[in-house]
């Protein structure tokens, strides 16, 4: 049995430098993915939360996407609303199944009466479609299998990993589930029988690493096979620090046509290289970029910050490091800090 696993599409979201064009890119890649699914004979597409960026996405946009999905009659799509996975209070944000859920709108709910579109919700946390049973991750994942199902797929939206505040994905190992389709993190991660496909199309700037867009092909037969498919022509967004000439050369070499890069800071001696990089219109120097001078003390402090934040998720760790270091290089003033925060959080 072959299923496609995607998550975190975030329809309704806009991306810096792309604006509303992101929606067109999302639709185009969804259509291509479904065509591929039909071609591969995939039985299902599982969307593990955050298909929509919010419960307030305009109906017109939502309907456009759902029309596109149901168009592919041979592929059945199972959608899990976004939100947390531990307790009711956590089920908020994005397209969580709340009182005002987008999935409860009459003009949206009508799509789930179609034969090839299914919704996992607290009202119906378990669905059996043909030989496959899907289990929605709400509060607790059911620990008893559907008796006459051949395949058991859990679909869960939440923070799983080894970092602070995350739930250990090892808890899925040894259960009756054949596969646990995760959603929440925008980067691809795989742990045994569970995996995050990452954001379907990236739209946020990352620091710790460059994040690709794509989906997972999951084959469940005698064993579990997970294959990651990356879109080569999807945009990528990342922030960098140019600490050496090598960094500049590497960036130039690895830059893809749809990459959007922001330089947050650069070493004093790399100024010329940075100027050269900026000739590429996809590379921009942030308004609040800082110049990094050689200072053994700062080097030491940077190391300490990394040690202190080692339990954090890498992206968060990098964010903290970048923010704190910026103000250790230059004495912080209130307006500067506020300005940096505004740019940091695009306020």
């Amino acid at each position, binding site marked *: 049995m072959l299923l496609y696993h995607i998550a975190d599409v975030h329809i*309704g979201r806009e991306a810096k430098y792309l604006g509303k064009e992101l929606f067109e890119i999302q639709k185009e890649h969804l259509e291509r993915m479904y065509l591929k699914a039909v071609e591969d004979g995939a039985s299902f597409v599982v969307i593990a939360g955050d298909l929509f*960026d*919010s419960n*307030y*996405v*305009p*109906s*017109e*946009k939502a309907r456009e996407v759902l029309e596109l999905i149901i168009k592919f009659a041979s592929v059945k799509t199972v959608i899990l609303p976004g939100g947390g996975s531990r307790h009711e209070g956590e089920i908020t*944000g994005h397209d969580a199944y709340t009182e*005002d859920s987008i999935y409860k*709108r*009459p003009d949206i709910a009508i799509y789930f009466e179609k034969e090839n579109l299914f919704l996992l919700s607290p009202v119906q946390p378990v669905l059996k479609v043909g030989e496959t049973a899907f289990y929605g991750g709400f509060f607790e994942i059911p620990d008893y299998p559907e008796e006459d199902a051949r395949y058991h797929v859990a679909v869960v939206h939440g923070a799983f990993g080894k970092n602070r505040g995350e739930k250990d994905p090892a808890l899925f190992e040894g259960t009756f589930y054949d596969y646990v389709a995760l959603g929440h993190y925008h980067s691809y991660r795989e742990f045994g029988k569970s995996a995050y496909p990452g954001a379907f199309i990236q739209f946020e700037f990352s620091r710790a690493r460059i994040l690709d867009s794509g989906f997972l092909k999951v084959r469940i037969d005698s064993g579990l096979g997970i294959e990651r498919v990356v879109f080569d022509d999807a945009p990528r967004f990342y922030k960098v620090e140019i600490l050496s000439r090598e960094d500049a050369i590497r960036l130039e070499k690895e830059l893809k046509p749809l990459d959007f890069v922001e330089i947050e800071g650069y070493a004093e001696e790399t100024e010329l290289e940075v100027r050269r990089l900026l000739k590429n219109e996809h590379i921009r120097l942030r308004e609040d970029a800082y110049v990094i001078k050689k200072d*053994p*003390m*700062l080097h*030491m*402090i940077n190391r*300490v*910050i990394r*040690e*202190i*934040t080692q339990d*954090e998720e890498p992206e*968060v760790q990098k*964010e*903290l490091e970048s*923010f*704190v270091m910026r*103000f*250790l290089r*230059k*004495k*912080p*003033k*209130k307006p500067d*800090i*506020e300005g940096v*925060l505004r740019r*940091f*959080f*695009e*306020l």
Partner: protein
Amino acid sequence: MIRLKRLELLNYKIHRHNVFEFENFTEIKKPNEFGKSTIIEAISDAFALTPEKLVGKKTKGSVENPVILLDFVLDGKQYRVSVNAQSKSITLKGEGVYLDTKESISKFFKSQGYPFLSYVVRDLLILRERDLYVDTRSRDFRKFTEDIFKVENINALKSVIDKILKEKGGFRDTSFGREYVEVKREYLELKEEIGALYEEYLKKLAKRKELNVKSRKLTELEEEIKIARDRIEDLKILGNLAKKGMLEMQLKSLKNRQKEIEKRLVEIAAGLEKYRKKEKEIGSRIEKKKEALEKVRQAEEKVLELERLLKETENKQKKLRHTRTKISLLNKEIDRLNSQIKKLDSEIGALVENKIRLQQEINKIKKSHVEFPESILAEFEKRYKDVVASIREVESIENRLAVLREKIAPYESYSLEELKRAYENWKTYNRLRHNAKGMLKVERGEAEFNGIKLGEGKTIEFEGKLEINHKEFSAVVYTVFELSELERHLLSYFKVFKSPEKLSEVIKTYKEIGEKEEKLQFIGPMKLLKEKKELEEKINRAKEEIKKSRHEKEQIEKLEKKLREIEDELKKYESQLVESRTSLEVKVTERDMLVKWLNEIDEVALEARIVEYKREIEELKDLLKNKKTLIKECKTLEEDLQRIKESISHLLKEEGARALERREIEGKIEEHEKEINGLKEYEKLLDGIPFGLVRDYMNKSYEEIQNEIEYLNKKLEDMIQKKIALSEEVARLKGYLESTSFLGNLDEKRSRLLELERKMDAFERMERFLRKVKRVLWQLGERIEREYIVEIEKRTREIFSRITENRYKWTGFNSGSIFTDGFGKNWSVESHDGINFEFKDLSDGTKTQLLFSIRLALISLFLGNKKAFLLLDEPFAYYDKNREKIGREILRKLYEDGWQIILMSARA
């Protein structure tokens, strides 16, 4: 690298003007008191850049303030720093550099990689006698150490975050806080608005469903209406045919009735003829009886008229008698009134005379009467009181003046001005004395000082003046020259007044006398006495005038009262006179009228007329006796006539009714025949009606069918009403659904909410992020001091190992903080062969090496790998030869490493 080259000192402590030049290794060997420490102090002052602090370091006996000029080479470039306490200026000159403020020079050093140079020089680069320990407890050291380790930045960042975030969650009232609140408010409002729009949208959906159901119902209803209408049409045909049958039956019965009526009409005509004949006969009999009755009625009227005339004439006769009596009474009354009027005229005349006399008397008194105003007397009395009070005050002032004059009698020879001058001099004299204290010590012999006998070795303290008496010798010593001058002027006053207080009292008395005299002059006592006498006379005169005026007033009032009484009486008599005259006039008129009427009456004619009337009445009364019989006969005849008329009326009525009925029946017959002819048409339509219907209604009457049609029509009407209501409903729903777009601006609002949601999310992420930053900063602050230690340990280890030529491989600091007492002593070392030593267990030489290493490690924290100069002031003063050798060896190595060594030493 920084190298000192030349130091020039001007008026700086011991150095009035000296120049010192430095090599990379300079040892100044000079004896004590040369000013070696001063050279080091001057270099420290040169980098401190505070000219004002040099002022206190002026060379003894010098007028000019100090100036320091220090030449040095920094990274190959020549500079001169000048600190001038004379012009209070500082400058740094060098290649392309001219700076003249402390801030700009410090900034320059920092930019060249020498931050906090003044502190580094003072606390690290200068080593004084044996003092190899670095004092890490000083505030300055801590401050610049923290700057190096960015503690200040960490604290500043923490503080800003604290200003942004609340302790227990959320933002403070800053721009973020306010913006967040605003975004949240808009978000909640918009959410509510969307909720309402969504409700509206759901309502529209429901309405659309309702529209579909109602449209379907409308179509069904229209179908039903059509069926009902067809049925009604069919029933109408069947009904018309039933009606035709019914009409034919009715026509037959109508014709029968027509015949009956005509027969009855003939009978009525015969009856009428009979009754009319009888009516005529009784009518003529009643006519005759009525003529006889008319005559009787006329006789009755005549009797009544005659009786009225008789009564009238008798009454006239009676009135004639009464009038004669009344005239006699009136004559008597007229006589009485005439005599009364005469009496009243005489009374009034007497009263008028009296009144004139009284008025004359009053006018006479009024003419001579003068009124004196009592307010004038009050004014005189008030003024009199004031004058008496003023006289009393004068007496009191004069008494006081007598006392005061007695008081100053002994001092009359002095003028007030003289006394005032003397008082001022006396005060100056006392002040001078008090401020000019002196002391006398008896060296030899004895004498009397200020009246006290003092012998050898005794001392006396005195104020201003000392009198010395010994046997024939007498002298006065004044501590100040002016004292003797003043005393000369004041001597007579001292005698007379004894004290300045007494003098001051006399001056005051003088002043009071002056004031009192001035006041007395102002009041004028003689004038007051004269005014008092005048006032007494005026008051007496006024009192007499008032008394006289009061008496006259009383007299006038009395006479006026009497006059008013006479006037009242006069009025009373005059009114009685008018009344009597009016009454007399009335009586005379009345009597004259009665006399005139009496004269006009003929009494004899009156009597004759009465007799005539009585006779005529008796004649007519005979005629009236037949009246009753006549009336009775007439009544019987009229009753018969009435009965006949009623019978005729009945017959006429019936005749009319029958004629009408006949006309109606004729009309109906015509109508029926016409209608039946018309209905014959429907027979042709019978074929079009469903057979079942014809069968069901064949035997039903026209009314039954009509009822059925009526019922169906009612039903149809209901259906049509329903249809209209439903159509309206459908149109309304369609209108409602077409009036606005189905979704409205719901999607637009949702898009805006998405933006706000993103903003809120950004704020919330920011808050979480800042709290994490705070946690990081908190831990970072704690970790940094540990990191200093690790760093200092590392650097110390490297330097110590090099200085000891690898005899020691490890050094460690044993305390949690470098900012504590005994920083230099909390160390342990490990020798190359693995043996651990505490600081206290090390040999003096090794201790020196370790302390040097620690100092150099600290210097390298600030200057990095840059080399500088070390200024050592007698470092080996208390060392034995061996230890000095080690010390010198360290310095040699440092020199070889590129350090500039400047050594001050007293030893040869």
